[in-house]
């Protein structure tokens, strides 16, 4: 099959599955599930096929196809892939498939749930494969908007204690509630989208209103002022989805409220859309803006890493811990982007993949623990390892990957980023990143210890009389299809850790394509 067709299938498969699901009677739950599996699997297979047929020696953008969409404005459905987008297409396929299996037991309106999940994933694939800025933006919105319904309908609520000098806002807002979280996430991301749209139209007009094609726009030498403000707009706009400080606060509430598969996809892939947008659109189209403002991106990313890690350390709700850890790890991605070095960029994109897998695994596990313990309050847990050994092992593996243990995917990614930071002349960023990895070790192992280690039921029974009933009667290990998503994610984490070149070789090609133009220096100097 032609590579271009494979790319189109990778994007279209989830959307076709969405259309089929919408037309399907909602009571055929089994058929609904398997349709979703097929949609996800076809998308994944096509993405893998596209990666396999990509010619690494030729490099550049390949598998290009184009259909006219709005010819009068120069908009076309142009798809194509490069060394960066391929790993991310595959990642999305994997996480979608794992997410479908992780939400196998959704009870409430499963047809609508799976339909929205696939629609969202189709949008994500579209963003990664799109070469037309307008279509890029269109798909970006398709990826973001279903989230509102998914969280507001299938989410869970939690009370957040009132406090602080701004405590009066509690009188109007149900902070921590699922509707609140859904609305907050949607509004914050839409404000970001508005900035992106603004910058996008600005670039289109400045380039002569001929074409939205990213390849054409990349050839236009925009004037300096436009580069600066458009870069800031794109950085903040896309960055709000990547959890860039201080626009990250939708993430903890949103991820905590979202159902398992949605958290997996959102933290696993959607946040990457933001970072991908900053690098692929912001930096590649606006090299001068990127060079001048790299220091700002880097400083904020450093704050992200440390802030996210410290905030995660203080959480007692399991989902909040993982959500803040995403904020911290996305800081690593942005830090790598800001270094403007080969290793930094390789690390940034590799970290997108590594963190995507790791956080999807985390959220899948949190969903399993929550589904069985009916609680997310970590201090009340303890000794779960005896009742759910497999989940404990997988959680430990995810934890170790997130703290950057060699042999798991996180190590290569983080190490490359820190190396790139020092190479880029910013030792402080590198050291801050290493400190962030240590802080990660503190909070993830603390959580793992509090949940799985120690005697069972100790914390809960401290106040109860002896012989009190089992506080967690439903604890059990993962079952059936649940294993599938865990096994796939763990296997990929290990595979990419032991042999990083599985992903790195492709990413390296993408970096070599784009970096010299952005950094304004020869590739050899940036190694």
């Amino acid at each position, binding site marked *: 099959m032609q590579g271009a067709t494979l790319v189109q299938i990778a994007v279209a498969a989830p959307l076709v599955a969405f259309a089929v699901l919408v037309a399907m009677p909602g009571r055929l739950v089994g058929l609904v599930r398997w349709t979703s599996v097929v949609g996800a699997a076809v998308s994944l297979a096509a993405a893998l096929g596209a990666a396999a047929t990509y010619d690494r020696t030729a490099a550049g953008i390949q598998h290009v196809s184009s259909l006219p969409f709005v010819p009068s404005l120069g908009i076309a459905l142009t798809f194509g892939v490069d060394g960066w987008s391929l790993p991310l297409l595959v990642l999305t396929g994997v996480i979608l498939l794992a997410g479908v299996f992780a939400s196998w037991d959704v009870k409430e309106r499963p047809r609508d749930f799976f339909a929205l999940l696939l629609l969202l994933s189709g949008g994500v694939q579209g963003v990664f494969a799109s070469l037309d800025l307008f279509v890029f933006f269109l798909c970006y919105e398709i990826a973001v908007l279903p989230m509102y319904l998914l969280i507001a309908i299938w989410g869970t609520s939690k009370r957040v204690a009132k406090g602080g000098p701004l405590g009066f806002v509690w009188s109007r807002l149900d902070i921590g509630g699922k509707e609140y979280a859904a609305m907050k996430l949607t509004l914050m991301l839409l404000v970001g989208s508005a900035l992106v749209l603004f910058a996008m139209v600005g670039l289109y007009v400045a380039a002569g209103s001929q074409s939205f094609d990213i390849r054409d726009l990349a050839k236009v030498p925009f004037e300096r002022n436009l580069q600066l403000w458009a870069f800031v707009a794109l950085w903040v706009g896309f960055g709000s989805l990547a959890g860039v400080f201080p626009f990250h606060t939708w993430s903890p509430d949103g991820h905590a409220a979202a159902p398992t598969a949605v958290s997996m996809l959102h933290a696993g892939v959607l946040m990457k859309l933001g970072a991908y947008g900053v690098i692929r659109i912001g930096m590649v189209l606006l090299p001068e803006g990127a060079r001048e403002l790299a220091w700002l991106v880097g400083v904020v990313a450093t704050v992200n890493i440390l802030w996210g890690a410290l905030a995660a350390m203080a959480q007692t709700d399991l989902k909040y811990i993982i959500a803040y850890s995403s904020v911290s790890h996305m800081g690593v991605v942005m830090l790598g982007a800001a270094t403007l070095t080969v290793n930094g960029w390789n690390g940034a994109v590799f970290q997108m993949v590594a963190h995507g897998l790791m956080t999807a695994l985390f959220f899948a596990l949190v969903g399993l623990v929550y589904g069985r313990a009916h609680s997310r309050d970590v201090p009340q847990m303890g000794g779960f390892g005896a009742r759910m050994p497999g989940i404990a092992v997988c959680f430990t593996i995810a934890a170790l990957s997130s703290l950057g243990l060699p042999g798991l995917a996180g190590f290569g990614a983080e190490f490359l980023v820190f*190396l790139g930071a020092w190479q880029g002349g910013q030792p402080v960023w590198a050291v801050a990143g290493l400190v962030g990895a240590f802080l990660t070790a503190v909070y993830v192992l603390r959580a793992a210890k509090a949940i799985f280690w120690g005697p069972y039921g100790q914390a809960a029974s401290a106040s109860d009389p002896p012989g009190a009933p089992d506080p967690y009667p439903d604890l059990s290990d993962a079952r059936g299809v649940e294993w599938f998503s865990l096994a796939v994610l763990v296997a990929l984490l290990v595979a990419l850790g032991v042999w990083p070149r599985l992903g790195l070789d492709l990413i390296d090609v993408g970096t070599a394509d784009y970096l010299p133009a952005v950094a304004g220096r020869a590739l050899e100097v940036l*190694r």
Partner: protein
Amino acid sequence: MVAFPPVFGMSAAVVGLATIVAPLAAFLLLGLLRPLRATGTPAAAVAIVAALVSTACAFALVFAGAPREAVADLTVPWLVSAGQTWATLGVYLDATSVPMLAVVTLVGLCVQVYSLGYLHDEPKESFGRYYAFHSLFLVAMLLLVVAKDLLQLFVGWELVGLASYLLIGFWWQKPSAARAAVKAFWLTKLADIGLGAAIVVLYVQTHALDWSPATVQALGPAGATLVAALLFVAVMGKSAQFPLHVWLPDAMEGPTPVSALLHAATMVAAGVYLLVRAWPIFDAAPDVRLAMAWIGAFTGLFASVVACAQTDIKKVLAYSTCAQLGYMVAAAGAGAIDAAYAHLIGHAAFKALLFLGAGCLIHAVHSNELADMGGLLRRLKFSGGAFIVGALALGLYPSKELVLAGVGHAGLQGPLVLLLAAAGLTAFYMTRSVLLALFGPASAHADHAHEAPASMLAPVLLLALLSVAGFALFDSVAPVLVAVRERPHSWLGHIAHGLALAGFAVGFALYGPRRRDALALPGVRAGLAFVRAAAVDRAFQAAYRMGLLAFSRSVAWVDRYLIDGVMNLSAFASQSGAERARRIQTGKTYDYLTAVVAGLLLLAVASVYAR
């Protein structure tokens, strides 16, 4: 470059690879096949066979008769950057890595065989898990030993930390074990920031990751000092140097064979091995080496003092490990890296012996406390005897003289005095432990004590034999193994021996058969030292609880109530604004009419004025 002679008719590098692949295969089998893991003893057999293969390969390499300059190299590109390889993964054998390979595999094998007896009461499933972790430990340590560059060494280094974490926390349902495991991981990870940064600096400055003279040349003196200092931070964490030693005594929460493995040939040895391996870098950084000499010597004395006050036999040995590592670090600091390496290898043998011997005693009385032992030699002739051999070796081992000679030769009087004092104390506290545990009146527990099974005794006796042989043949073996300089027959050696004998004598006088109530004594004598040891621990705890955790809580507070508060404030403001605005919409027709009329009037007036 001189090629390594073939071993077993194969290239030496392949044999070196086999030492890693065998335990790796065992780990994968035990880790992935749950039914196999749950079989208990057969699972152990898989791991032990793998360790045996590994040991055989390692010893074949040692006895291959390779010249000192021989090198075997088998690496594959592991990380790429702009299409070019910059980090490799593989096997690199030379005169430094091969002896360590043998030490690690042999101690690992002994510990695995020993554990068959020691842990036979464990449930089958966790028995299998134990052997899986052990195999992982071997893989990690061997990966570190055969590393060609610092990045692979770092990989092994971190995986060793992981395996220690898993084994220290083997009894994960015990809260103290869980805490100790996490503490060990955190403290070493904290120090590993140094190693990570060192690798980054090395690469940025030289575009290389190795420790060859050419790399050190490219690094320059300032660069070498920075890299050496950063590396040494990591060494301090891993090799438990003051003040990062606090994880080591807690690590005794693991099963005793694990302590033997951790303290003899693997976890803590990794730090000193890094000193040996990356010696050219340290050699070029005299300032760092001075600090090393002082820190090592201070740790040697400090830990020896603290060891005198311990009532738990494993803690005595733990602090003694700390102290001996101090010797090695001080030797490296003085430039006597061969002495450090010789002491590392010798120490691996007799410390494994001491821990496994102590394990036999613990196994017999089901307690770690010296107070629960006493008079055990009568019932435990072999293991008791082996423990005594170990204690003598710890007090008198010849490599210690090399260390002292090296420090003295470098003109470091201060560290020398500290180390000499530590030598006397070592003899004292080992005498104390031996007398309290093996002699004197039998405790209540000791009555039904029984000798350990053969699976435990065999490794103990083998190690005892090796310690004795190492002792007797030191002058002929050590130069071959680690290329030490000739043992100096200086006055230093006599002083050290004299101090050690004095230590034995004082110990005997204080804790001999006539002083049966002597157990209370150390509480008074060395209480001060103990308080200081605990103070370091408490400082770390305070920094963790009151520093890190409190700070993180304030960050989280700011995040939730200020940063997110501002976001919520914007939502609040628009909602309250809307609330105000909607009051205009009364729904009453006449209000709207009033507005219409007012608007018309306004328009009329405006049109008049606009004209």
